C-alpha cells in the first residue's frame, strides 16, 4: 500500500507510531504487565522511598508502592482521558464547525462568536475553573477538558469548510441538487479530515499533558489512583532526595506526548486522497 510505504519513509513518524502503539498495548494489559498490580491501592509503610533496585526498578513512593507498577497502571488513565476527551471534543466541535462553515448568516456568526469566546480564554484556566466547579475527580476533569477543547475543532473544521464550500466539486454537487446534509457530511467532511486527524492526534498528547496538570493541581484524579500528574504532585515534598518518585511518571508523560506529536506530524503527509489506488 502506497500510504504505508510513504509513512514508513518518515522516521520520526514511525518512532511516534511505535511509542503510541506501545503505550496502547501497555495500557490494555496494564494489570498483567505491572509486577505489583495491587500497588494501585495498597500501601507498604515499611518500603517507603526506596531507590531503584532489582526489586523495584523505578524505586518506591512515599507509601512504599512500586513506582514502576504505578507508571504502567497510570497509562490507562492517561489514554482513557486522551481518547474520551478528544472524541468528545470532536463530537461537539466537528458538526458545529461544519454547520457554521457551510451556512452563512446569523447561525454561523453566532456559533463562531461563541467559539471565539472560548478560544479567547486560556484552555487550562477555563478547565481549572470548570473542574473546581464540578468537584475534583478524574471524570469531572474529563468533562472540563472536553468542554474546553471542542472550540479548537470547531475552528479548524470551520476554516476547512469555508474553503471547501467554494470548491468546484461542491458547486458541481449543488448543480446536481444534492442536499446540504449530503454535501457537508459525505463530501466536505472527508476532504476536511486530514487537518482534523492531525489535530486530534496532537490533541491526545496535549490532553494527556493538561490532564496531568489538573492532577498535579489536585483538580483531576484523586489519591490513591495511579495517575502520572498526581504522582508528580505527591512527589514534590520528597525532592530532590527521592528523585525517582517524580522522574519516572514525568518521563512517561513526556514520552507519550512526544509520541503523539511525532505521529500527528507524520500523518499530515500521508492522509491524501491521491495516495488511494483502485483495486
Amino acid at each position, binding site marked *: 500500500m502506497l500510504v504505508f510505504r510513504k509513512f514508513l519513509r518518515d522516521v520520526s513518524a514511525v518512532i511516534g507510531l511505535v511509542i503510541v502503539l506501545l503505550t496502547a498495548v501497555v495500557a490494555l494489559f496494564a494489570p498483567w504487565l505491572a509486577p505489583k498490580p495491587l500497588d494501585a491501592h495498597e500501601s507498604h509503610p515499611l518500603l517507603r522511598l526506596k531507590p531503584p533496585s532489582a526489586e523495584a526498578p523505578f524505586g518506591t513512593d512515599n507509601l512504599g508502592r512500586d513506582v514502576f507498577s504505578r507508571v504502567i497502571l497510570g497509562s490507562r488513565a492517561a489514554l482513557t482521558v486522551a481518547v474520551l476527551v478528544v472524541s468528545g471534543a470532536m463530537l461537539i466541535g466537528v458538526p458545529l464547525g461544519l454547520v457554521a462553515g457551510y451556512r452563512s*448568516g446569523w447561525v454561523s456568526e453566532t456559533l463562531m462568536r461563541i467559539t471565539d469566546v472560548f478560544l479567547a480564554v486560556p484552555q487550562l484556566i477555563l478547565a481549572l475553573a470548570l473542574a473546581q466547579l464540578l468537584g475534583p475527580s478524574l471524570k469531572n476533569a474529563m468533562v472540563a477538558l472536553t468542554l474546553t477543547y471542542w472550540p479548537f475543532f470547531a475552528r479548524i473544521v470551520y476554516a476547512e469548510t469555508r474553503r471547501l464550500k467554494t470548491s468546484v466539486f461542491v458547486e458541481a454537487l449543488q*448543480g*446536481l441538487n444534492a442536499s446540504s446534509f449530503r454535501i457537508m457530511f459525505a463530501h466536505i467532511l472527508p476532504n476536511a479530515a486530514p487537518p482534523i486527524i492531525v489535530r486530534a492526534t496532537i490533541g491526545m498528547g496535549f490532553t494527556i499533558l493538561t490532564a496531568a496538570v489538573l492532577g498535579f493541581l489536585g483538580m483531576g484524579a484523586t489519591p490513591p489512583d495511579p495517575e502520572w500528574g498526581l504522582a508528580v504532585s505527591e512527589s514534590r515534598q520528597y525532592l530532590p532526595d527521592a528523585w525517582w518518585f517524580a522522574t519516572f511518571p514525568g518521563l512517561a508523560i513526556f514520552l507519550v506526548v512526544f509520541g503523539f506529536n511525532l505521529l500527528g506530524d507524520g500523518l499530515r503527509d500521508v492522509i491524501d486522497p491521491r495516495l488511494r489506488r483502485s483495486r
Partner: protein
Amino acid sequence: MAEILAVEGLVTLLGGEKRFLRAERPPVRAVDGVSLELREGEVLGVVGESGCGKSTLGRTILGIQRETAGTVRLDGRVVSGVDPRTARQMRRDVQYVHQDAAAALDPWWSIGRTLDEALVINGVGPGEERARRIDRVLRDVGLDPTTKRRYPHELSGGQLRRVTLARVLVLAPRIVLLDEPTSGLDLSVQATVLRLLRELRAELGLTYMFISHDLSVVRLMCDRVAIMYLGRIVETAETAKLFESPVHPYTTMLLAAAPRLATGQGLHAAAIHGEPPSATAVPSGCAFRTRCPHAIDACAVTVPTLDLIADGRRVACHRWPELAPLERV
C-alpha cells in the same frame, strides 16, 4: 427550431451581501440584463474574455446562482424567482459541466460512487436500474466499465472530462451547459472530446450552450454565437455570418485578435486598444466605448439596446447602422 429555454433581462449581482459586524462590499454586476434563447437541438456559443460574466450566466441559468432580476423560462414555463434548490428541482432538464473537470470531482470518491450518487440524489432507483444506467452512460462517453473502480487522480484529462460529462448525461438532461469544455486539454485530446460532444448531441438529441473563449472551437462547434462584454451581450448571429461579417466593433476586434491556424496573418493588421476594464468599474453607457474606435459622445450616455437587424442578428451598438449595411427589422 422551437425555443426550449429563454432568459429575459437577466441580472446577476455577485458579492455585496451585508454581513454581520463587517464592512459591506459593493456588488459586481456580473450579468447585466442578458436576454437570449436556446432553440431545441442547437449549439449556442457564448463567447467573451475572462470576467465578461459568461460563466456566471451559465450558473444563473443552471440555477445554483440566484438571479437578481429577470426571468428564465423552460418550455415556456417560468422557472425563476425561487430559491436555488427549488430552481434546480424545476430545471432538472438543464445540467452543467464544469470547466475544471479534475476539480469538479470529489477526490475521495471513486468514479462509480460519484456517478451513482448523481442518480441517488435525483431519486433514481433501485440499485440495479442505476447500475444499468451507469454502464450505459460510460459506454456512451467512451469509457471502460472498469473506470468505475478508479479515483479521479488516476485518470487523464480527457478521461476526467468524459466522467464529468457522464455524470450529467446519466440524468438524461435535454440541455447541457458546457463551460469551457476543452480548456486545459491538449490539441489531440480536445479533438476527441469535441467529436464526442457532437456524437452525443446527435444520439441523445441534446441542446448545448457552449461557453468558451476559443473562437476556433466555437466556429467549429456552434450554430449560433452570442458575444459578451462586461456582463452584456453585444452581438448574436449565426456562426457563419458572425465570422464573415462582424458588426459590433468588439466582435470585430475579438475576431481580429484571435489566433488562427493560417500563416501570413498580419500581427499588426487589427486595431486593438486597451485592456478590458475591471468588472467593478464598468464604464457608463456602452461598456465598450473606452476601447471602441467608433465611440462618440452618445455612447457614454445610454446603454445601447440589443436591436434585431436584417439578417437575423442582434447588435447592441449605437452606431451599427453606419457600420453595417443592414436594415433594422
